Structure formats: C-alpha cells, structure tokens
C-alpha cells in the first residue's frame, strides 16, 4: 500500500480489507486511512466523525434512486482537509473497513483493560 512507502513513522495496522487499511500512530495519536489510492491522516475525533458520516449513507436508497447524482456520495468530515467522492461500491467497502477498525479498537481497549490495567 502507498502509505508504507511514504512514511517513516511507526504505524500499527488496526484493520485491513482488500480495499484498504487503517493504521494507528501512537506517536501522533491519530489514525491513517489508506483507501482509494490515498492515505489520509485523521485525528481521533475526525476518524469517528468520518465513520458516522459513512454509516449514515443508506446504500439501498442510493441503489434504488434513479437520479444520476445518487450514483456518488461526497463524504466531507468537518475540520478535515480532505473529502471522499465515492461510488456505492466504494462506500460499502469503506463502511466495512471502518467498522472492522472500530471493532479492533474496541478489542484493543478490552485487552488493555483486562490484561494491562487490571493487573497493575
């Protein structure tokens, strides 16, 4: 993926699908979303805002709507320099990627709580 070639920061892979990958930077306290040929840096808040926006897109409605404008969706999280212009298939892929990343982050949280914080 493009991200690894460009950066020297140590990034931990959070979740990967065929369409992309989410990384976490412990140094910068942020996430990198490598998707659609671009790697975009997101603060923690922006990352969850992006997920909320992507989750809000109703795929069945989008597929059923005959208007040409409904073929694409513009996802533009507030306070983020970037935006995504995505097709239905790409939104489905991004949903899957972000949902998987969220589950892994929650799993990491549970593991930290059970294995690290409780035994200290």
């Amino acid at each position: 993926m493009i991200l690894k070639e460009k950066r020297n920061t140590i990034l931990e892979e959070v979740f990967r699908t065929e369409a992309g990958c989410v990384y976490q930077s412990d140094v910068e306290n942020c996430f990198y979303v490598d998707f659609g040929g671009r790697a975009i840096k997101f603060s923690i808040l922006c990352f969850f805002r992006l997920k909320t926006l992507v989750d809000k897109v109703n795929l069945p409605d989008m597929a059923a709507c005959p208007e040409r404008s409904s073929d694409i969706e513009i996802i533009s999280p507030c306070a983020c320099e970037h935006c995504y212009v995505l097709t239905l298939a790409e939104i489905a892929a991004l949903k899957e990627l972000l949902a998987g990343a969220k589950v892994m982050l929650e799993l990491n949280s549970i593991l930290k709580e059970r294995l690290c914080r409780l035994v200290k």
Partner: protein
Amino acid sequence: MKDLLRLKTSLTEEIEAVLNDQIRKEAHSSALYLAMASWCDRNGFDNSADHFYKQSDEERQHMLKIFKYVLDLGGTAVSPTILDVKFEFNSFREVFEEALEQEVLITQSINNIVDKCHKAKDYMTVEFMNWFLNEQKEEEYVARRALELFDVIGEEGTGRWEIDHQIPKIKYE
C-alpha cells in the same frame, strides 16, 4: 498499541448515544412545559403558568447537566432538534395529566439508562444518573399531587380558580 479509544473518552458509543437521547428528551420536556405555560397563561391560570415556566427552566437545566457531563467525559454532546411540541390542550386537567405522563416517561428513560450503564459496567454514569433518579421522585410527586387537586377540590364553580391557587404551594419535603 495505545488505547486511543479509551484515551479519547470514558463513554462507550452506546452510552453516549443514550445520553444524547436523554438530552433530546429533556429538551422536549422543557419545550412541552413551555407550551403548557403558554396554554395556562392564555386561559387565565397565572399560577399554573408560572409553575410550568419554572418546570421548563428546570428541564433545560437537566438537559445542560447531561450535555456538560457528556463533554466532560470526552464525548460528543449533540444539540437536539425539537419538533412536534403539543401546544393545545382540551382542558385544564389534561395539561396536568400530560405533565405527569411526561414525568413518568422521563423516569422510565432514566431507569433504562441506568440499566444499560450497569450492563456496560459504566459506574461513573450510574453515579451521575443517581442524581436524576432522586430528582424524578420530586418531579413525579409534584405532578401527581397537582393532578390529585382536581379530585380533592373539584372543578365545579370556582374549583379551577382554587386549584390554580394551590398549585404553587405543592412542595416535596
């Protein structure tokens, strides 16, 4: 790997969502009480109007208390949109029946939040919500007592005038 999720907020997504839902319900209560105040004012029940103005203020304070709590814990508090507030009532009595119904609804909602917090082991929020449970004792008591005045005094003759004068005297002690 750092636990960025926990570092960002102490609230889980589910608890944050139910707290935001409660913010919306408290805001709706505030708007509904304001509508009741308006109805009472229009129909000559000045003391009851004052009672509902105060209730409306209280509900807004409750909303802000939860709003600030969500933010204090690193969550995102959402300013609610309030639609479809009932502003016409068939009778003086119906206003108070609706008020009690609203308080029962709020109590149930808080109970559900506490239940979810226990399941999520979020004892900080349980502790926070205990204040609201205590508050609901008073809110339900006042609403129930007000409604009981309609049976005790009766609405015939100057009954409604008398009820309106007794409303400010209801105290929970």
